[in-house]
């Protein structure tokens, strides 16, 4: 018998964790002499009450969806891919090359091309650590961390030495051609009378991320490859017994993971900045770890968690703008959410399980 019903696992536990995180965040805000209720109001108002706020929230959520899915897929194979940041950076390079050097007639074709470019480059960046893990047993956590640094340095070099237009001062590529500009939510949903999502960076990539969610779900829970990935993740000895090659699954799972992380750059580099800049990932690769943890590595959970973190990012920016709560404190609040939903999961889980068991015993 499972210890508690599925809904409690998926909804109740994250909810309680979230409330705990909110409680401690409130204490922190109180401690610096601000009003936590006001702060929450401001966050909700800025991130959810106006379409422009949503435009930012969903833009961030798109990034977190891709990186969260990336971490989840790898995690189903018990591979802790914390190289999403680097894979996304290199994915951005792929986007830039595709957009700059291929003449695209229309954005709809360009986004497909850029997705392929981003996925291939991201996957390539994940392939090297995956190969070392599979063949030589080098721990993937260590190698993917190091590859984040290598990716940052490589991107710096490429931008400064190769992609920077002649005469430009900042380390960034040239602007992408207009045909590759993606329609933003503002373009898509505004009418002449009612402008929507004004100035917000959310763009059509959000739907690409939603599609990725569905595809990942099919992959993990419906296909043979997903079955093998999950089996390998649960028991390597079991996988060997079944004739599932650990080398193959390690490499394939990391390729998919890297590709997903890389595709985040379609949203940032192609959808928002429309040129490749340094640090366009802004730590989204790492947030993806928290998103996957909170979403229990299930695409639907990842979706909800990505929206939540999008809200925290946008709401946090609003706080920094309108109150004396410093930007650093926003990071503290985000960290508290990660701490409670991810790291301290068992602290909430065990008491809740006990309650359910006690309830069941009383009923029987």
């Amino acid at each position, binding site marked *: 018998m499972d*210890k508690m019903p599925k809904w409690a696992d998926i909804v109740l536990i994250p909810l309680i964790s979230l409330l705990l995180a909110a409680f401690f965040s409130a204490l922190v805000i109180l401690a610096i002499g601000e009003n936590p209720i006001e702060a929450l109001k401001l966050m909700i108002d800025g991130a959810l009450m106006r379409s422009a706020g949503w435009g930012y929230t969903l833009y961030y959520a798109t990034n977190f969806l891709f990186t969260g899915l990336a971490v989840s897929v790898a995690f189903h194979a018990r591979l802790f891919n914390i190289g999403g940041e680097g894979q996304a950076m290199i994915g951005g390079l792929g986007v830039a090359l595709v957009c700059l050097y291929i003449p695209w007639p229309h954005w709809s074709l360009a986004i497909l091309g850029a997705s392929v470019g981003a996925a291939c480059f991201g996957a390539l960046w994940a392939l090297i650590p995956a190969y070392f893990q599979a063949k030589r047993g080098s721990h993937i956590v260590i190698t993917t961390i190091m590859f984040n640094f290598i990716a940052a340095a490589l991107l710096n070099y490429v931008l400064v030495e190769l992609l920077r237009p002649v005469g430009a001062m900042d380390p960034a590529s040239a602007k992408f051609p207009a045909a590759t500009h993606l329609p933003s939510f503002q373009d898509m949903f505004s009418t002449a009378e009612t402008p929507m999502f004004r100035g917000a960076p959310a763009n059509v990539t959000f739907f690409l991320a939603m599609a990725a969610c569905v595809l990942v779900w099919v992959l993990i829970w419906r296909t043979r490859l997903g079955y093998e990935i999950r089996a390998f993740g649960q028991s390597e*000895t*079991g996988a060997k*017994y079944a*004739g599932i090659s650990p080398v193959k699954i390690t490499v394939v799972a990391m390729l998919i993971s890297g590709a997903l992380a890389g595709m985040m750059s379609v949203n940032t580099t192609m959808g928002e900045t429309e040129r490749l800049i340094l640090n366009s990932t802004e730590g989204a690769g790492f947030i993806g770890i928290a998103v996957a943890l909170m979403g229990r590595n299930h695409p639907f959970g990842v979706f909800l968690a990505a929206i939540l973190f999008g809200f925290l990012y946008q709401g946090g920016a609003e706080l920094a703008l309108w109150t004396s709560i410093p930007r650093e404190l926003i990071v503290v609040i985000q960290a508290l959410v990660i701490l409670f939903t991810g790291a301290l999961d068992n602290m909430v889980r065990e008491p809740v399980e006990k309650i359910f*068991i006690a309830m069941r015993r009383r009923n029987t």
Partner: protein
Amino acid sequence: MTAPAIELKGISKAFGPVQANKDISISVQPGTIHGIIGENGAGKSTLMSILYGFYKADAGEIFIKGQKTLIPDSQAAIKAGIGMVFQHFKLVETFTVLENIILGAEDGAMLTTSLGKARKELKHLAEEYGLNVDPDAVIENLSVGHQQRVEILKALYRKAEILILDEPTGVLTPDEADQLFRILDRLREEGKTIVLITHKLREIMDTTDTVSVMRRGEMTATVKTANTSPEELAELMVGRKVLLRVDKVAANPQETVLNIRDLRVVDEKGVERVKGIDLHVRAGEILGIAGVAGNGQTELLEVLGGFAHGTGVIEVNGAEIPLTGHGADGQARRAAGISHVPEDRQREGLIMEFSAWENTVFGYHRDPAIQNGPVMDNAGIQAEAQEKMDRFDVRPPNPKLAAKNFSGGNQQKIVLAREIERNPDLLLIGQPTRGVDIGAIEFIHQQIVKLRDQGKAILLVSVELEEIMSLSDRVAVMFDGHIMGERDPAQTNERELGLLMAGITDTSAVADAGDGAAEEALNDG
């Protein structure tokens, strides 16, 4: 009348919804060997863990030598004079015997004084109980039987008056087990009280004074061993009449299905575990491989199953199968008609987090028949899983339950259902009834014999000698990577096989004079 050494009154313990111990009362007289027998999951280990302070009972009282005693942790248990020898030894492998013995009982910051004291004490204990172990030997260099002695010495060094042994013979050769029981006899003579937890009826009958039977968390009976029989105990354990012997007709072997020549296997550490063995198995017969765990049987199965590499020649149905590189994996083996019930169902045969239905195709999940375009035909697999579970009497018959939620016996039935129903030419089966309750053992044995009678070749590996003797049509004994000899189970006995298992090939002394057949078999070999 003296107070009982141990008296438990009304002990209850629940783990979540599972009631592991229900109102258990038991009284153990000092200077006796008291057996506790029961199926896996009957609550034996839980009860002893409560006595040793690992768990806290929800209700009930513990009396030691007539005194009510609280045992919140193992320190308190040791103080009360209780010592425990676990199934899996708790020794530091790289420490010497002496260092292990004082571990946790060092007096003072400097080790030399306690080491010296322990050395003297150890010598004394060795003389008193016949527990001879070199105090300066490093644990990892000792045989399993000697490691177990160190565990017993550890308990005695801590002045244990009551010794609890949890499944002590699981890892021993028959000879080592005999030595252990001689030591236990000696301890009893010296007035120690011994509680022996086991699921082996024979050990209970041979060594204990009284025996308590547990079933589903309850103590169903406590009887004088002299007044009972194995049949009665089995019935008390399971709750119904059990067939202790396997019912089967003589084998009718046909053509050779599996032929192994000069097989060698080197493990990951570079140690040669299988050292050039020759074997064959014919259609319609069961070849049993006897041996103490760790003598190369595991590696033999792994190479045959395709998840370890080896050198030599293995032919299945006359065709050589690759032992390294491509084609030497589980998928290729299944395609060649080999099914495999692995030794460790929890780590190999099943994915514990997967539901039962997902496990019913594990290893065969690439079969085109269960694909539906690009995805797996989950609905079809579930329907078929339900039928398989019904046919193999898996309880509860719910394919959506995760494998980890089934009992050991039912997990094994899921694996068996999967492997047998693929209709293999050759079935490899390792430890078919390890951790499986008696009721399920009967069923599993019947299935294996049924498959043999259908004309399949079966290679059986088991450390349970009784199982090997009753199931096999031929028995080969493995020791240190070699086949020590082959015997006809009808014409040999446990003592002879026991010697072979210990690496002694000269078995003429024990090939029972009254049993001329055994000698004949020997001469043939």
